[in-house]
Structures are given as C-alpha cells and as structure tokens.
C-alpha cells in the first residue's frame, strides 16, 4: 500500500471539511479523486503533501507514518498544487535550478534534469522567459515539471489538466501514462471525468466529508456502466406502453414525453431492441445507442447519497 488514509478529519473552525476519510492507493496505481467544488479535494492533497496539518486520523505513505515522518516524506512526494505559484521574476530555467539547489543536486545534474523536464512539458522555447509573463497553462506545465524534479515515488496532482488546451491535456495524460510504466504512484484530482476514464485504475468519490465510493475503474464500469438506447416515438408515451415492457435485461426506463431512455445490459444489442419495439407496435422516429460514462456514474452515486 503506497498511500493510506484512515479516518482523516480536518476542520476549519466549525466547518468539518473532512469527516473520516478513508482511502487506499496501491503502488503504481493511478488514483482519480473526484468530488464537487469545495468538497475538500485540495485540502486532502495539501494534507498528503505535508503543507497543512489535520485534526484526526492516520496517514501512511510508503509505509511511513505521516505524523512522525513529515519531513522525510516530503522528499518522496512530488506535488502539483491546484494553482502553482512561482517567483515571477525568475525564468522557468532559473526556477527549476532553484528547486534543484533546494534538493541538493549538483550543477551538472541540475542542468541535465532541467533540460529533460523542460522538454517533457514542452517549455524549452520559453525556458528563458520570465514566469511572470506565462499563461496559466504554461505555469501548469512548469508546475508538472517541478513536481517531478526529484523523481518522486508518489505524485500528487491537483487538477493537472484544468488550465490546459486540448493538446496540453493530451500531453499531460501521456506523461501520466508514462509514469505508470515507471511504477510511480499517482493521486490526482480532476473535474474532467473523461481524463479519469482514460488513465485511472481506481476512483474515489469524496462527498460530505467522506469517501462514498472507492472502486477499481473496471469493476465500476462493470457494475454501473451499461448501454442506453434513446428511443423517440411519434406520440407521447403512456403508462400502459411502459407497463408492457417486462424484459429482465432492462435495468431502467426513463420517459419524458415521446422520448424513452432504456438502460440495458452490456450484452444486449440493437436486434433485441428492435424485436422489443416491434412487439410494442407503435410508430417510432429514431433509435440511438449511447454509452453511459463516468459522469453518469458520478451523478448517480452522489444522488444515491443525497
């Protein structure tokens, strides 16, 4: 187990932001941390990075207890804050050198590492420009480079792709995929659920101060993901028609006016649907297949806990 949080509690005054949070991240895993705005994702990541303290609970990182090893752990962790802040009068090359010096690297190592990282995040061309003149996305890229400077075993990324253009997002996703091959453990929060679908092994959903769901992504997909057929009828649908449909492979039926959404098992294909529709024997206008995605799952799980 690379990251373990047990019963983590954090209060700001009377505001209990985290109220017994539990999660487990295994070595080499990419963990997607989801939740609404203001639910406490950044707070959790600040705690994991050792930037702020917590009121109660236990954290172990790489089998080391957070309370007794706060400073040792910092060397093992790379952290990309939500909005990384640098010294604006430095160039990115100077900033990376500064971080290298803080970490105690020698001149040559710093030179090599700076070059590698600036290439990785595609900032070589602006490496001698002042960071103060960078766009939000460029700062984000630099932040990613900085977080990886020390070859950390654990990377905490707070919304790594939020400020990036589509190419930038793709780059970041590829970078993270490569990290996985290196056996680095990644804990990342994001609002962009399609990113999570593309790279995460496990997701955890934070809601009301607790993790309300934690599951491997493939298991989650098996459990929640299914096909949805959107069927448009010529006339509004009445209850009798709905009652007629009894097939046990249908998981859910939603109806609004003349549109029906049929949630069905994965292994059902259009032939079964057409057979069903012909039995109903009412005119239809269109039939569309859609796949539910993580967003649907997220909304569903949160609604169940409302």
């Amino acid at each position, binding site marked *: 187990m690379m990251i373990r949080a047990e019963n983590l509690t954090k209060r700001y005054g009377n505001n209990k932001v985290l109220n017994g949070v539990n999660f487990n991240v295994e070595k080499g895993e990419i963990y997607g941390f989801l939740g609404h705005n203001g639910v406490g994702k950044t707070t959790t990541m600040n705690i994991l990075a050792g*930037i702020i303290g917590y009121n109660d609970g236990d954290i172990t990182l790489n089998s080391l207890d957070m309370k007794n090893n706060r400073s040792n752990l*910092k060397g093992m962790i790379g952290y990309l804050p939500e*909005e990384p*802040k*640098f010294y604006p009068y*430095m160039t990115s090359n100077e900033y990376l050198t500064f971080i290298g*010096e*803080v970490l105690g690297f020698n001149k040559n190592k710093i030179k090599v590492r700076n070059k590698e990282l600036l290439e990785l995040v595609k900032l070589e061309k602006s490496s001698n420009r002042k960071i103060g003149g960078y766009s939000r996305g460029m700062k984000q890229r630099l932040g990613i480079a900085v977080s990886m400077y020390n070859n950390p075993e654990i990377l905490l990324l707070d919304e790594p792709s939020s400020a990036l253009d589509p190419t930038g997002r793709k780059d970041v996703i590829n970078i993270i995929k490569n990290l996985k091959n290196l056996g680095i453990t990644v804990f990342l929060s994001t609002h962009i659920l399609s990113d999570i679908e593309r790279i995460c092994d496990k997701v955890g959903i934070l809601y009301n101060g607790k993790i309300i769901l934690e599951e491997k992504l493939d298991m989650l997909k098996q459990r929640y993901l299914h096909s949805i057929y959107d069927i448009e009828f010529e006339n509004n649908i009445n209850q009798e028609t709905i009652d007629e449909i009894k097939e046990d492979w249908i998981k859910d039926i939603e109806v609004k006016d003349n549109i029906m959404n049929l949630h069905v098992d994965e292994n059902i294909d259009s032939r079964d649907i057409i057979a069903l529709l012909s039995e109903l024997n009412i005119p239809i206008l269109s039939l569309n297949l859609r796949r539910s995605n993580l967003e649907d799952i997220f909304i569903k799980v949160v609604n169940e806990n409302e």
Partner: protein
Amino acid sequence: MNSFTAYIKKEYMEGIRNFKFLIIALGIILFALLDPLMLKLLPHILENQAPGMDLSQLANYTQEGAIQNYMQNLFQISNLVIVLTLMGLLSEEIKNKTLIIPYSNKVNINGIVLAKYIVYAGAIFIIILIGFLINYYYSKLLFPEEIINIGRVLKSSSIFGVYFLFNLSLVLLMSSLFRKSIAAGILSLSIIYLSPAIGMIEKISKFSPYYLVNQANILSDNYDSFLNKSILLTFIYIFIFIGITIYRMNKIELD
C-alpha cells in the same frame, strides 16, 4: 544548507530584479548628499527670509552638524523606506503561496529565514557604510573648517548598522506574523518610532536598541561605557526575533 544557499541566490536575484536594493540604497544614500547641502544653504535661504536673525542658534553649521542631521534622517526616513520595502519579506510569500512548492520539496525552513535575513542585513550594512562615507566626504567638502576624524564616523556608521540590523529582524518577525504586509509594516514602524519615547525613561533606556542611535550621534570618543553591552544586547534581541520567526515559519499553515 542547500536551502540556505538556494535562498541566498533567490533573495539576491529578487533584491536586484524587484529593485529592492536600489530603493533601500536611494532611501539611505540620498540624504547623505542632501543633508550637508541643506545645512550649507540654510543660512542663505533664511537670510533672505528673515534678515538680522541670529542663525547660529538654529543649527550646528559644521561637519559634525551635517553628519548628525544625516543620522536624524536615517532614523526618520531611511527606517520608513527600509520597512516599507521589506515588510513583505515573508508575508507576501505566505499570501502569494510561493512557499508551497519549496515546502513540499523538503526545503529547510530555517535556511529560508536565515538567508532572507543575511542577504538584507549584508545589503543594509554595506549601504549604510557607503552612505556615511559619502556623507563624510561631502560634508568635509562643504564645511572644511572643523574636520572630524573619519574613524569616529566609521564607528558611528557601524553602531547605526547594528541598529538597522535589529530593525530588520523586527520587520522579518512581523512579516511572518501577518498575511497582510502593510500590517507588518505599520506595526514595525510603530515600534521603531515609539522607541525614543521609551528612551526617555532613564532606567530602561539603555536596554532599548534606540540607545544605539543616541550613542552614534555623539560622534566623539565619549561613548557611554554601556555601549558595548548595548550592542551585545541588541544582537541578543536579533537572535531572539529570528528564533521566533523560524519557529513561526515552521508552524505555519500555508494554504
């Protein structure tokens, strides 16, 4: 040690690129030139305004007088410039969250605080010395009648330097306590400007760093026997203030 050297370089870069050294230098050196000139011109100006007045009562028109005037402005105006320039030394970093990345990279916090102190302590000490030297030679030029021994001026400059080192530790401490740098500035200035009032209470005046300003003003060899102890005491205050600052910065929540 790594953090310390990294931050020495960083503060040096910041001091130059954000013109902090330049502003402090202006705030200290400008009066080194202005004060002797003003003193030289004052009688001529006043003569036209109020003919027949006895001007010798008004000021000490000698090199000594010029240097003492300079020290008065160092206390009143240079302090203001230094505090306003450096009040954000830590509070800006806390407010702007620029410490988050270094903190998450195992930075040595003691190294940060010491590096900041040492860079500006060095700068201020050197600038003060230059200020006194300029003041000395310029006032010598304007008032060649009674010339003071340069050794005394260098001594006063060092005493004043120690006094400014104390004020620097005060600003640094205040800057670690407030997220708003202006709050740190106002509090530091209040303490600095109110300390002459404490000096009026005979018994404790010697224990206040402001006592150094009084002693520097003497400009002769008649320093009080307590001066050395006072300098030592000021260094003790500085160590204590830096110690509290380091403690505070180790405890601080950065979000």
